[in-house]
């Protein structure tokens, strides 16, 4: 008997010991299988490609303070795993090291850390150490984390930054705050570091369009992270500057001159791409004053197979406005639904521009229909909901408009944003035969891409939420052929919403069916089983 117990003890100790050892070994050698649909936790194709294309070494230094408390410690693990995968994909072209800035401290630094002073409010502070100064110069920012030391909760400066270096150039991720977008950020920075030339996005100016420094500050800021953004004025010329790689036409208010239309047409015929965000009216979101917009781009776009509508799309599924209301002696802000800002639960179409993006706001937009000529592929990227309708001129966009008495004829969904690509015919094809001083291209070289949206305010700073930002970046990437990046960005946004138009009956049926129905069936099964057993037992005794 005693031998038996001894054996069991030895067995237990043996098993426990080897399992613990296995766990320790497993921390170093591990594999991961990603079962998410979009492979959200696996290095994407675009990252892999970017790594394979590396010609010169890229060195990465991750400054992570050692032994960070949760949840930061799992960030460190994620970053290490991710960099490990990058290194494998780059076949050694990318190398990385993990550094704890504290280990770089000199004796003088340690002394400096001990000398805390107090300001007149009693708050303690100390001089930065040489390491901290150096990292600040490089652009890596410390974050304050709460840790427990000597039985006291203390705030401590911790580092979670990454520096990438390629030849003479350098890019920095100051703080790894969100691991969900880290892969996108990292791959983008590597591409930015290693590409020979920065692509140029031109934004058309000179027809009352909102300025880059005026309503499009956020747009410029976002696009500048990857591209060079510059205003383009056409003036009397018949050509867009050859340095421009893609063109954005955002909300012109006055008509473009014939030579300008020709310049844009020939820009596209040259095989480059453009996006048009065109208004039928422009509305100041501060006072809701409408003003007409007559850009005259309709006939040009019709040649490419896109027809602009002139009625505003209003949608019951819409964004909200904050309105001030008098309640007794108080004036309070009340959010009211505003049908002229359709809210798109999910973008449409099998296009990398729209994939996985939902929650885009498209204020004051008309419908845009597709009639693509032969050889041109057209895709609808965004549609209003089924509960949308069209409003004709003169537009009554007053936010205080009383909708209770109105019964608009609901006729949605209407297409709001479309894309066309392929061999396009020139709007000025007839002039191609005549011997003009500058030869006119009758057909496009290559396959230009064109995006047309029925409104421009979606890109203004006022409406630039995270979904609109993602959409804008996708448009820019698509125009410049970076479709790999698009897929990666979409992964972070691809939540699946529930159907919004469920009736109360369906909801309750699902709710109570699951909550009560399943336990009920289980109980019924138990009772039937019990009765059968009893019956069998009764038979046996008889």
């Amino acid at each position, binding site marked *: 008997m005693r031998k038996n117990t001894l054996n069991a003890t030895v067995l237990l100790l043996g098993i426990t010991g080897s399992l613990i050892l296995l766990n320790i070994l497993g921390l170093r050698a591990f594999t991961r299988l990603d079962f998410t649909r979009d492979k959200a936790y696996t290095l994407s194709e675009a990252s892999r490609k970017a790594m394979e294309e590396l010609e010169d070494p890229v060195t990465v230094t991750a400054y992570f303070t050692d032994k960070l408390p949760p949840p930061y410690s799992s960030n460190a693990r994620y970053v290490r795993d991710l960099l490990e995968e990058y290194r494998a994909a780059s076949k050694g072209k990318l190398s990385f090291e993990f550094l704890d800035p504290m280990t770089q401290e000199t004796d003088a630094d340690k002394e400096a850390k001990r000398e805390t002073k107090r300001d007149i409010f009693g708050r303690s502070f100390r001089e930065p150490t040489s390491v901290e100064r150096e990292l600040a110069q490089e652009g890596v920012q410390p974050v304050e984390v709460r840790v427990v030391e000597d039985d006291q909760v203390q705030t401590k400066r911790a580092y979670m930054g990454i520096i990438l270096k390629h030849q003479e150039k350098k890019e920095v991720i100051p703080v790894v705050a969100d691991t969900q977008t880290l892969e996108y950020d990292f791959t983008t920075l590597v591409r930015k570091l290693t590409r020979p030339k920065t692509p140029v996005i031109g934004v058309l100016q000179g027809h009352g369009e909102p300025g880059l420094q005026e309503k499009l500050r956020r747009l410029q800021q976002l696009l500048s992270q990857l591209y060079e953004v510059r205003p383009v004025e056409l003036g009397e010329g018949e050509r867009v500057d050859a340095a421009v790689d893609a063109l954005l036409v955002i909300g012109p208010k006055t008509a473009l001159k014939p030579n300008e239309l020709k310049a844009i047409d020939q820009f596209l015929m040259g095989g480059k791409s453009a996006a048009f965000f065109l208004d039928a009216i422009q509305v100041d979101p501060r006072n809701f004053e409408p003003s007409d917009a007559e850009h005259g781009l309709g006939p040009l776009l019709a040649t490419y197979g896109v027809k602009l509508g002139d009625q505003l799309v209003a949608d019951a599924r819409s964004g909200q406005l904050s309105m001030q209301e008098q309640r007794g002696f108080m004036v309070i802000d009340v959010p009211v639904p505003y049908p002229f800002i359709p809210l798109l639960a999910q973008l449409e179409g099998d296009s990398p521009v729209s994939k996985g993006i939902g929650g885009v706001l498209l204020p004051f937009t008309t419908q845009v229909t597709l009639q693509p000529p032969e050889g041109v592929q057209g895709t609808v990227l965004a549609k209003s909901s089924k509960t949308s309708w069209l409003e004709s001129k003169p537009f009554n966009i007053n936010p205080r408009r009383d909708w209770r008495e109105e019964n608009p004829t609901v006729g949605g969904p209407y297409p709001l944003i479309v894309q066309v690509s392929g061999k396009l015919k020139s709007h000025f094809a007839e002039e191609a035969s005549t011997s003009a001083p500058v030869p006119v291209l009758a057909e496009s070289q290559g396959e230009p891409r064109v995006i047309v949206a029925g409104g421009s305010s979606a890109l203004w700073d006022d409406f630039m939420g995270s979904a609109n930002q993602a959409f804008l970046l996708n448009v820019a990437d698509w125009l410049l052929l970076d479709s790999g990046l698009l897929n990666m960005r979409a992964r972070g946004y691809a939540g*699946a919403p529930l*159907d919004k138009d469920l009736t109360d009956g369906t909801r309750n049926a699902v709710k109570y069916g699951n909550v009560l129905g399943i336990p009920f069936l289980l109980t019924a099964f138990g009772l039937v089983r019990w009765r059968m057993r009893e019956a069998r037992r009764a038979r046996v005794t008889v």
Partner: protein
Amino acid sequence: MGMTLAVARREFKSFFNSPVAYIVLGGFLLTSGWLYFSTLFVAGQASLRGFFGLAPVLFVVFVPAVTMRLIAEERKSGTLELLLTMPLHDWQVVTGKFLAALGMVGVGLLLTLPYPLSVAALTAEGASFDWGPVVMGYVGLLLMASSFLAIGLWASALSRNQIVGFIVGLVLCFGFYFIDKFAVVLPQTLSELLQYLSVDYHFENIARGVLDSRDVLFYVTLTGVGLGLTTRTLSNVRQ
């Protein structure tokens, strides 16, 4: 193996012949269903994250309830001696009982399958339901349940009293679940270890949809240690 399965079959049947299975599973399904569906439509997202967030907490309570009588009752009623005199190794008895309990938790999880099915059916047009994290969530729950069952089984072997077995199991499972939640208030050197010891931390990784060998290894270890300890305790009883 045949012996183990015979023990497992006997135990599994006895679960469903007594009211235990119906009370425990019914309680689990009512609570999890109510908590999950009461927030589902408010959040408006077609995801089972809510269910996978609360199922581990429910396991802390319900799993020890499944295991509490498995050994304690046999000790009390004297049938354990009978079982141990049979030509069975201790580990076969333990593994058999463990498999039976795992089978019962498996039935419980099977009965929650209408949740993902109905949520997938209600997903908005144009968006598609991601089954990857759901399947992995269930795999994670089974792994977590097996480690809790092994712990609960050991707790049941420690005493003749079912209630004691339940409470000890509950405290242990609670400890392994909440251990990393205390990590913030502990010295740094300990916090990383505590995080690694937390069943919830590893479960969260799997429920995202990623099966990582480190997480699986952790659950296998915990289950192995739990079953080892039970076998050890049982040999003591035999003495």
